[in-house]
């Protein structure tokens, strides 16, 4: 098991090395980044909206229910919901969801290209296949994920406000006051830094497993599963490390 771990770790870093080679044409790299932003980022807005809206609402209702004490002001619900959404939900949970959606998409796309010899075709032509296929995806993710995370923060807080106001558990004025209360902009920066790390993790791990697929459709499926499992674990580890380093 350790041998396999170090084998993949070593090969992963060699793979990253190939990613940073000079591209054949900057113009083509630019075009491909735009295509990938559309495919990986813009296409994820729907799922991020739905999840953020509902989770924001649930966080607010749960917090309000648990803080049902006359000595605790109502606006605390807004503050607690904001902190949960900003610090953990929008950066970590959204990225875990993206590891499933985007990660498996990247892995199966590159894996299929491998088994249908499209990557061999690139290599024969003298194209750096890692640079051509992976670099635009990584850059697109580094651009898209922080935007998605910031968007998720807004939608999550909005979902919380709607739920609090609609159920009457936290009136609108209290919730909005709670959102503003003791706000630390630093938490947003911390969250966005985490999202950048996770974006790099998801895109490179997914590309790695896809790139080295051997066999057929079954192996492409396995690579997608490995992508989701490995990138989720790595996200959780980095989450812990970054939190310990930044907030402690």
């Amino acid at each position, binding site marked *: 098991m350790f041998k396999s771990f170090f084998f993949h770790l070593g090969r992963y870093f060699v793979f990253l090395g190939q990613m940073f080679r000079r591209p054949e*044409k900057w113009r083509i790299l630019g075009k491909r980044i735009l295509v990938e932003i559309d495919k990986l980022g813009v296409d994820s807005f729907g799922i991020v909206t739905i999840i953020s809206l509902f989770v924001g609402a649930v966080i607010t209702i749960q917090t309000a229910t648990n803080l049902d004490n006359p000595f605790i002001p109502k606006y605390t619900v807004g503050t607690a919901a904001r902190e949960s959404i900003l610090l953990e939900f929008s950066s970590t949970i959204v990225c875990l969801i993206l590891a499933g959606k985007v990660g498996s998409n990247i892995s199966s796309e590159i894996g299929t290209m491998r088994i249908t010899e499209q990557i061999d*075709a690139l290599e024969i032509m*003298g194209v750096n296949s890692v640079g051509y296929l992976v670099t635009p995806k990584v850059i697109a993710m580094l651009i898209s994920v922080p935007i998605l995370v910031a968007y998720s923060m807004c939608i999550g807080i909005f979902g919380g406000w709607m739920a609090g106001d609609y159920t009457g558990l936290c009136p609108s004025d209290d919730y909005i006051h709670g959102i503003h209360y003791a706000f630390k902009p630093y938490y947003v920066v911390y969250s966005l830094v985490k999202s950048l790390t996770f974006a790099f993790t998801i895109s490179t791990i997914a590309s790695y497993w896809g790139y080295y697929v051997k066999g057929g459709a079954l192996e492409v499926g396995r690579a997608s599963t490995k992508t989701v499992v490995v990138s989720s674990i790595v996200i959780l580890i980095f989450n812990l490390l970054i939190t310990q380093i930044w907030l402690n």
Partner: protein
Amino acid sequence: MIEAIDIHKTFGDREVMHGISATFETGKTNLIIGKSGSGKTVLLKSLVGLYQPESGDILFDGRSTINLSHKRSLALRREIGMLFQGSALFDSLTVEENVRFPLDMFTNMTLQERKNQAIACLERVNMPKESYKLFPSEISGGMQKRAAIARAIALRPKYLFCDEPNSGLDPLTSSVIDNLIHEITKEYNITTIINTHDMNSVINIGEHIIFINSGNKEWDGTRETILQADIPAMKEFLEPYRLRFE
């Protein structure tokens, strides 16, 4: 001309090529034949640089490809065109964009020039005009092969490699693809190496033939002399086609 000199290739503990030496001449369709699992694809992929042989040398017009610097290796690869067994067209690009791809990557031509060149290649392989804007999944296997040939010749290569070009095609389409490869070889005077187990290809276009068995080169000759080979594995391989040769 491409020369393979004493090529050995191993996967794990298993040696799959045991010192193969062969010469592939320019302006001729050179065929590598043999049973499935005989090592044809490994030889072809070693020649083209997708596999690195453990020992031996491969010369492209006298230029050794072993231990070639990255820059020189890339330069050499741009002189190579390859037709893959499954065509290997890029799914996300249209037929025309697939053919234009090497031109986009490696030339400084204007967009219009690249488009014109791609269309010229597609016309050369007799692709119907209405297929230019279609994606590979929307065209037939035969058309995919034609498009892949067009892409392979887009940069006017000196060397053309074809891995099982007739795989999955009906006999008529196979013959069309064979003839197309043969015509292009003559027209551009390139060194063409075709990996096949299709005896119809041998009869139609085999000018220089190499027989591979269990990772060894067992015979080398022309289609005219193929029946005179006194090798048991080859006799067994050719038996179903003996009447057609005769």
